[in-house]
């Protein structure tokens, strides 16, 4: 191998030898400087560029978020009454007293008599995504028209009631409606 290189070198003239020496030394110097001087500098710049891109992304995301929050604030103000209704439909506590008052009010308004009202025990409490469902059943007596009026008022009430079953029975002149329903509140 060495003898082959020596043979090749002996074939080169003076100018070629000079050129090859200069080129070899130059390439060696460029490589060394690139590895030990240029590469660390480029690395630092690249990391700064990465940081800048991330900062720009975060900045634009924050701008969008602020814009959305300002819009949300305006919407909350605009729909204040509706939100109040929504909070009454699904309040943040069970508020049994309010439900009982409401049923009593509807009953008085529709000339019906509530004979039984029952909040089911803990076994029937369901919770899903922070929404708690409590079973509520009640029996109401009255004339056919009054019972219909009671049901209508119940549907239109502020508190959201999920009616699962309605059974209306007529025994002689007394109409009885048994309603199985659920009320909801959030934690």
């Amino acid at each position: 191998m060495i003898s082959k290189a020596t043979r090749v070198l002996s074939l080169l003239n003076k100018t070629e030898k000079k050129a090859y020496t200069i080129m070899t030394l130059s390439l060696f110097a460029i490589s060394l400087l690139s590895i030990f001087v240029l590469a660390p500098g480029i690395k630092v710049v690249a990391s700064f560029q990465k940081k800048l891109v991330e900062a720009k992304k975060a900045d634009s995301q924050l701008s969008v978020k602020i814009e959305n929050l300002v819009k949300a604030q305006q919407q909350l103000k605009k729909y204040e009454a509706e939100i109040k209704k929504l909070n009454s439909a699904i309040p943040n506590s069970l508020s049994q007293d309010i439900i009982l008052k409401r049923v009593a009010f509807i009953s008085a308004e529709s000339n019906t008599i509530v004979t039984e009202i029952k909040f089911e025990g803990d076994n029937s409490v369901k919770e899903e995504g922070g929404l708690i469902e409590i079973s509520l059943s009640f029996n109401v007596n009255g004339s056919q028209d009054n019972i219909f009026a009671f049901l209508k008022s119940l549907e239109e009430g502020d508190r959201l009631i999920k009616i699962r079953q309605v059974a209306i029975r007529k025994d002689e002149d007394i109409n009885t409606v048994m309603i199985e329903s659920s009320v909801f509140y959030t934690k």
Partner: protein
Amino acid sequence: MEEIDINLLPKTELEKLPVRKRLFFWIIKYGRVIVIIFQSILILLLFYKLSLHSQINDLSDTIEQKVEIVKSLSDTEAQTREVQKKIAQAKDIKKSSFIPSIYITFLRQNVPNGIAIEEIIIENGVLKISARSKYTTLFGEMLENFASSGKTIDIILLGAKFGSESEDFTFDIEIKMKNI
């Protein structure tokens, strides 16, 4: 006139010089050029780095300010999320519930006078009724009304009885309603 090139300095023959001198020759003539080029690149990189640094600093300040604004609006965010959640929950509840008055109105519109309804059960889109009438023709009329209302899927006769003493026709039917 012929041009004569006279160089009185002895010509350096690189290949004849010792390695140390050869290296020195290269450094003086070519190495310095390479070093200068690299230094220029490094200076450019330094300036670029400084400019990036100042941009990052400016952006960091802006981000800090914006984070403070977002923090001050955190109540709005929480309230909005709660409202959105409640709207979705209310929609789900309404979807799984039914409105009894719609079914009762349906019966009132389609059950002819002369049929006395004794029991109505409404559950999961199914309406069950137990009723009596003195005339079987009214039963037929009622079924026709139900079918032509366009609100029913199936009408199933669960039971029918004709009382010979009372002369009453009693029946139980189940009506599967369309989503109303």
